[in-house]
């Protein structure tokens, strides 16, 4: 079951940063990687991806560059910047803390259904 759209939108920046932190990649591959890594849970639409990518680029968290691939086609790849790495570490910590506390609260609730 794919994640609710709002949840993906709200966490798009950290998801993209996590994927790009592994290695530089272009938009098409970012969508594929997210899909594969989450086994289809984070099915980020292409239309959602680019505004987020461009915002991250404007914020200096990733930087884009053009490369030509076989067949003469150009594509814009993105790599994480030092600032992006720091932001990713901050968001990872934030999410871990959030997850830990959500689990703590959920663990005391009686099983529904």
């Amino acid at each position, binding site marked *: 079951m794919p994640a609710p759209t709002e949840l993906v939108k709200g966490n798009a920046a950290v998801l993209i940063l996590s994927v790009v932190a592994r290695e530089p990649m272009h938009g098409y591959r970012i969508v594929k990687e997210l899909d594969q890594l989450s086994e289809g849970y984070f099915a980020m639409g*292409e239309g959602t991806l680019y505004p987020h990518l461009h915002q991250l680029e404007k914020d200096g968290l990733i930087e884009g560059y053009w490369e030509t691939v076989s067949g003469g086609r150009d594509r814009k790849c993105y790599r994480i910047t030092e600032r992006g790495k720091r932001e990713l570490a901050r968001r990872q910590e934030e999410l871990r803390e959030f997850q830990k506390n959500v689990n703590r609260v959920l663990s005391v609730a009686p099983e529904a259904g």
Partner: protein
Amino acid sequence: MDFLSEVEKKLDLPPGEKAQVVRELKSHYEELKGELVAAGMDANLAAQEASRKLGDAADVSSRLQAVHCRATWKTALLTVLPLAAMMIVHISRFPLMQMLLGPHADKSVVYPYQMSALIATALFGVIFLAGSIRELLRNRRPMWLATWLAVGFRELGRSVYGLQELTTWMKGQHIAHAGIPSSTVLWLLATGLIAMIIFRRSTKWSLVLGGWTVLAGVVCILVPWESFAVGWSIAFSVVADTPLVMAIALGLFARHPYGNTAQASLFLFAFTAGTSMVSMRSVEWYVVAADVLPTIVIVATVLAYARSSTWRQKILILAGGIVGMYFAHFPFSSVYDTLHTVFMLLLVILVPMLFERRWSERRPELVR
């Protein structure tokens, strides 16, 4: 109409920037379509499916438009901050002078950059310039960089003029109306050097900019400044550094992958908007009051620019701001003010637009 054509039609960005966005989406579309065809889908169906997966063109273009053009309120306020700060320094100089000089203030020939106003100008210049250099070293081009750099650079230059004028005045010597040639030459050298550093990879442009710097410097030294009327000598000093300032704007913003020509226009607007207020006027209340309205127009223009959503809106707002400044200052306007308005329209609006067009044409990879 297919997805890419619709996005291209709806996006209102400077041509070079728009071409890059569409080119990236096209690359994605082609790869997606290719994969579907490779999986055995019919080419027409694959094209339709690829368009569908890219989403609603109107939604995608409006979100891209917002990212590329419209600043958040925080960024908008940061963008307007240097101009607002200098407005306060400028307007407050009369009461400050009165406080410092007491009853003699009204009788003195009072210059804009004295004592506290000069210190405040230099201080703000350093702060805004330091903030700008930090961003430039990080290779970033946030919207506010244009005004911070323009105001920081300009106000530091004015501080040098002001310091020289103040010390000359305190010695009881006569001061040329529109600045002192040695300060002007120093300013030209600094501006020329920065422009040459930006264009260091182009021998042709380095030589052109270096040549202009030397020529303007020599004219500044040889021309008898005091023979000019106030407005005309200011006009001369403005024209002398214009090509150099323009080169800085185009090199730092219009040619940079994260910048654009609208940002270059904003830089030029912020840089030139205050020059009509440099004139060495004796400080009477009505003169200070005459400057209040134009400065409010400048601040409002930059705020509206930052919050506007399209490239065309930004250009129209800047053009409106330039004309608005003229009318706000109208009761005190001279021939010089009229010429300055025309000059600003050419410099801030026309030149960056022509550059954009020519630059995009020379970069075929930017065209879809």
